[in-house]
Structure formats: structure tokens, C-alpha cells
């Protein structure tokens, strides 16, 4: 954007040159002109839309958000009924989008890193399998993959009355996957708090262990200890609070299962489809990042006597990270944006709810505007976080 150049040859000369011969000033004039044009075009579009809508007596504005939505939503993370407002319905949709995007991103990163490293494995079978995975999944459009998984769930899994039960209390049917969950009890709140506490302790422990290693060279068994802490603290809190064991077990009543925890086929198909598709790209990014590190680095590390897993985790990955992170950000954004394909397989995500809202109120311009703003904010937030992380990870160069 800013191309204003400062290489004019001193004030005494520029005074003699008229401004249209001064590249610096000319650039500013042109930029101002273009800015004016952009604003004029924007204003024209806005005014034209307003005028046309008025002429056709189409109502505008966001007043509809407060009106009763009047339609049901299949799955909601917060209480919702048809009597709630459109704004509330949109919030339910947004949370559904965030839910699938968040879980999706975590699983994608995990799977992508594993596949990416597997592709570089010296084991022929492992590396070929990883290559096959990447080539196949990367090259099939994600919408087709979603349809595939969704129809797989619908056609292969039995109806609820004949559902498949691999473990007592666990049911797989074409209505979803049902698991038993503990009945709500204050003990679980305490356990969650204990887990948070354990995480904090682990964080401090790690700082201390690093410091000690820097000073004395002694290695503290951080991972086993923290695993014990993370499991032990919540367990202790749970048993101190009375160790409740009552479970809510799904059972068939009427048309469907009641109780327990359930995942819908729509959520499952969307999550699997997005994770498998995006992880193939992440795997390639990880591979490229690792291969970009000169072979001399790992040779040098090995000549110091480090084992191959330590070479990877201490030498290669930290350096590869700064190459990996920027393209990784765009894959995360892709996953979030692709989650809007949910409308095709019936997961009630933000776009799906917004579409229904548009259809019922007929206020397409406002609806589409809301969709755009929400996705823009989601994308900007993700980018901002990843940029911050990238800065944190970037090599400090002297």
C-alpha cells in the first residue's frame, strides 16, 4: 500500500520541482484519488441498494433478529427452542460451527503431523501408505468426501431398533452414536478444577525442569510425572467428593435413544470428512517443513550422540515449525470455512441456521452480511492468534 518514496534529493531541490514532477508527492495524490474512488464506489453500491430496496418496498434493517425464530434446530450446545429469537438461533449455529472447527483443527493437527512424519519414514510400507493417504484424500473434493461419509453412516448403520452395541450401553445406529455418561454431580466440577490445577503445576514444573537442565544438565522425567499429576489430581478430587458412579445409560424409548451422550451422524460425517481432507494438506506442509531443514542439522545432532527421536523433537521440529506455521494457518482457516459445507449434509452450522433465517424473513442482504462478518471475524481471530504464535516461535536472528 504505502509506496510513498522518500528519495527526493533534499528540500532545496524539491522546492524548485513542481509537485507533479515529484514522484513522492505524485504517489500520494494518486493514492488519495484511488482511495476516493474506492469510497465512491462503495457509497454508490450502498446507496443504490438502499434506493432499489426502497423502491421495491422491501424492508431492511436488523430488527428481525429480535423476533421469534419459530423453527427447530437439531443439535444445540446451549438450550434452544423454537420460541427463542433469531439472534439466539444464530448463536446456536455459531457455536455448532465453532465446535466442529475447534475439534476438527485439533484432530487435523494431530493426524497431519503423524502422517507427515510417516511419509518421511525409512520404513517403505509406512511411507507408501502415508503417500497414498495424502494423494487420495487431497485430490477428492471435500464435498464428495462429506457425501461419502454421510451416506456411509446412513446406509451401513442399522436403525435405532436394531442398533449395533459393541459394549454395554454403547449404541451405534443411523441416528447417531450413543455413549453412557456419568450423571451430573458436583464431584465432576471439582475434578475439572483439579485438572486445571494440575495443568498449572505441570507448567511450573516444566519451567523449573528446563532451568535445572540448563544449569546442571540433569534431565527431569517431565512427561511421566505430568501424566501422573494430570490423572491423579482429578481422580483424588472425585473420590474426595464422594466418588459418584451413577451413569446415564442410553436406552431406547419411542423413536430414539434417550439419555447418555450422543454424536449425530451429521456431526460425525462432517468432522471425519473435514479432518481427513485437511490433514492430508497439513501432512504435506509438515513434510515440506522438515525436508527444508538441511540434512547437516540432523547429522550434526546425531554426531552429538542424540537419539533419533530427540533429533526430531529438539533439532528438526523447532526449526521446521517456523516454516510450517504460516501455511498451517491457512489450512486452519480452510477447515473453518469448509465447515459451512455442513448445509449439504444437514449439520446445523452457522450458515445453515442463517440460511433458514434468510428464507423465513426474506432479508437476504442482512443475512448474508451477518454470515460474511462472522466468518471474517473468525478468520481474523485465527490469523491473529497464529501470527502471535508464529512470532513466538520464529528464530531470533542476530
Amino acid at each position, binding site marked *: 500500500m504505502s509506496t510513498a518514496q522518500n528519495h527526493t534529493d533534499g528540500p532545496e531541490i524539491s522546492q524548485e520541482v513542481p509537485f507533479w514532477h515529484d514522484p513522492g508527492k505524485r504517489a500520494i495524490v494518486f493514492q488519495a484519488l484511488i482511495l476516493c*474512488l474506492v469510497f*465512491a*464506489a462503495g457509497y*454508490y453500491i450502498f446507496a*443504490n441498494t438502499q*434506493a432499489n430496496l426502497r*423502491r*421495491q*418496498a*422491501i*424492508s431492511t434493517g436488523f430488527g428481525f433478529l429480535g423476533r421469534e425464530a*419459530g*423453527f*427447530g*434446530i*437439531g443439535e444445540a450446545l446451549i438450550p434452544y427452542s*423454537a*420460541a427463542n429469537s433469531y439472534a439466539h438461533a444464530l448463536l446456536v449455529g455459531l457455536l455448532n460451527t465453532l465446535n466442529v472447527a475447534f475439534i476438527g483443527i485439533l484432530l487435523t493437527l494431530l493426524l497431519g503431523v503423524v502422517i507427515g512424519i510417516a511419509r518421511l519414514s525409512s520404513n517403505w510400507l509406512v511411507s507408501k501408505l502415508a503417500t497414498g493417504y495424502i494423494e487420495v484424500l487431497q485430490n477428492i473434493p471435500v464435498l464428495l468426501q462429506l*457425501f461419502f461419509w*454421510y*451416506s456411509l453412516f*446412513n*446406509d451401513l448403520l442399522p*436403525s435405532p431398533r436394531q442398533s449395533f452395541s459393541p459394549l454395554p450401553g454403547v449404541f451405534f445406529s*443411523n*441416528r447417531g452414536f450413543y455413549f453412557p455418561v456419568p450423571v451430573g454431580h458436583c464431584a465432576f466440577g471439582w475434578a475439572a478444577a483439579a485438572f486445571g490445577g494440575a495443568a498449572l503445576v505441570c507448567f511450573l514444573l516444566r519451567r523449573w525442569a528446563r532451568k535445572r537442565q540448563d544449569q546442571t544438565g540433569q534431565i527431569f522425567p517431565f512427561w511421566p510425572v505430568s501424566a501422573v499429576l494430570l490423572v491423579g489430581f482429578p481422580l483424588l478430587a472425585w473420590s474426595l467428593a464422594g466418588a459418584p458412579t451413577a451413569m446415564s445409560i442410553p436406552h431406547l*424409548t*419411542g*423413536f*430414539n435413544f*434417550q439419555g447418555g451422550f450422543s454424536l449425530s*451422524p*451429521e456431526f460425525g460425517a462432517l468432522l471425519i470428512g473435514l479432518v481427513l481432507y485437511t490433514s492430508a494438506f497439513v501432512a504435506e506442509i509438515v513434510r515440506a517443513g522438515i525436508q527444508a531443514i538441511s540434512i547437516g542439522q540432523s547429522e550434526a545432532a546425531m554426531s552429538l550422540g542424540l537419539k533419533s527421536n530427540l533429533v526430531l523433537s529438539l533439532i528438526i521440529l523447532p526449526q521446521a515449525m517456523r516454516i510450517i506455521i504460516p501455511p498451517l494457518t491457512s489450512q486452519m482457516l480452510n477447515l473453518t470455512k469448509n465447515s459451512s459445507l455442513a*448445509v*449439504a*449434509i*444437514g449439520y*446445523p452450522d452457522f450458515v*445453515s441456521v442463517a*440460511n*433458514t433465517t*434468510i*428464507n*423465513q*424473513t*426474506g*432479508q*437476504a442482504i442482512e443475512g448474508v452480511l451477518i454470515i460474511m462478518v462472522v466468518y471474517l471475524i473468525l478468520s481474523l481471530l485465527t490469523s491473529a492468534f497464529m501470527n502471535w504464535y508464529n512470532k513466538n516461535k520464529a528464530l531470533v536472528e542476530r
Partner: protein
Amino acid sequence: MKLTRTAIIVLLAAIFMMLPLIAGAGETLDAVKGRGHLIVGVHSSLFGFGMPDEKGVWRGLDVDTGRAVATAVFGSPDKIKFITLTTQTRFTALQSKEIDVLCRNATRTLTRETELGLTFVATNYYDGQGFMVPKKLGVKQAKELDGATICVLPGTTTEQNVSDYFRTYKISMKPVVIEQATELNKAFFAGRCDCLTSDASQLASVRAVAPNPDDYVILPEIISKEPLSPAVRHGDDQWRDIVDFAVLAMIAAEDLGINSKNLDEMLKSNDPNIKRFLGVTPGNGKALGLDEKWAYNIVKYVGNYGEVFERNVGKNTSLKLPRGLNAQWKDGGLMYSPPFK
């Protein structure tokens, strides 16, 4: 030098952008006549209402309604172009003048008429929302569907109707909303939902293409009123009248006993109503700004309402829909045309 050239280009671009504002289109009839054909927005794949057949010829009740309008204007049903629209694009297409008339099983409602700036004309099909369930579920009426999972096609009044119905009877349900009708039907046939809800005519249309149509039953309850009507934009009354009476002409022809076969005999009729209708006694055409033969041509090339109904959705089609509410008023239906005089 370069600067002036840029300035000129910018100025021209600005003027070009302003043009649509300055040159507000004239009356719809003039625009249609000037163009030489009518543009009608239709459904892309609703058997019996709007769908191309195996030869690529458009068929359906809504399609024929569009043809009736084209015939009224041009005296020929072929000066017409069909644009397929989804439930989400249909009203916008009409508002933005992409189409001249919308014949796409749209329900007339108060907010659509007012807030969307649309004018709905005479109803060409009286529909209502119903439920279809697999027979083996053993459900006899909709009230037994408490706790059911229901497949809903989004984008119409359907979602709200089903919600309203379940709220009225204080029973619960879980909607599965899939945008594409084909995907939704597939999910229903695969057993994802206990029940499929949509307009009863659409349910019949879906059942006709089911792997095994006899396995499904449409429940007796009709939970909503869906007067499906063609629509035009607000503000062009002449055009509204033409589209309105093109639909009504088909209804009136059946009422008067005129069909595409006895049409030319009817020209000799002594009944003044028939004479006026067919343009033997002139007046109606001039009043609408059309040829005096406009109604004659509609019956000749498209048929009367009964013929159009039977051809597209009637007993001899795979939809097998009864006339029901869509029978003539004399036969206990709602099809009623004002006098053509």
C-alpha cells in the same frame, strides 16, 4: 497526457456505473415484448411442477402456468425461457428483474407480499404440509410422532410449520435440515429420519421416485395452508393483471366447459360468456393490452386447468394426486374464476 487519459477512463466508468439508475426499465410488458420472449423462474427438479423430461422439454403445472402467460403475450407457448431457481434465490431473482414471473410452487404469505415487495396472483395449486412415514413404523397419525427425527427441506415455510405443529401439541421432535432435496430424500429413504415433511404434493412426488413407493404412507393430517401461486414484482399493475388472468383463464375455461379439443366448436357457441372469453365478442384483450385471442390461445396451446392438472399431476401420472381442493368450485374445490367481462 497519461493523467488525462486515466481521468477520461475513470469518468466513463463512473457514467457507465450510473446508467442502471438513469435508465429505469419501463413497464414489464414492454420489456418482455421488446425482448421477444418471457423469462420464467421455475423449480429445477420437482416432478409434476417443474422439471425437464427425458427429452429436455420442461414439464409441470408451474411450467405450464408460465407457458400460459407467454401464450397470452405472444400467442405462442414457445417464446419462453426457463430459469431454475432454488428456494433461496427465487425471490431475489424476481426482485432484481432477472425473471418476469415466478412460477415455482411459492406459498403466498403476508410477509412475502409486503416485506419482499412481491404480488402473488391467482393460486394455481392449493397445497398443505403433510408427513410421510415408512409403513413399518406403524404410525397412524402425526400426533404419535413425539420424539421423532424429522427430515425437513429448508427454505420455505416448512420448518416453521412443523415447529408450530409440535409446539401446539407439546410434543418434541428433532429436525434434520438438508439443503438439497435429493440428498434429503436419500437420507430419509436410508432411515436417517422417522418422518419426512413437506407440502403434500411434494411428498407424493418424492414417494413416486422412492425405491419402493408402497413402503411409505402419507399421514392424513395437513398441518398448514399452502396456496401456491405465481408471483410478480410490486408496482406494475398491468403486468400483474396479465399474469393473474392468464392463470384464471385456464380455470375459467374449465368452468365454461372449454378445452383444447372442443375449442373451435365453442367459437360458434351462443353463450355470451364464452363469446367474450374466446374473444368472439372483443373487449377483454384490449382491456389487458393483449390480443383479443389471448384466452383462446391459452386453451389451444396449454389447455384448461383440468387438462393441465391431469397431464402433470393427475391420476394417470405417477403422482396420482386427486383434485381435492384444486377441483372447480362447482365440484367442491377452491378453483373459482371471476367473470371474464
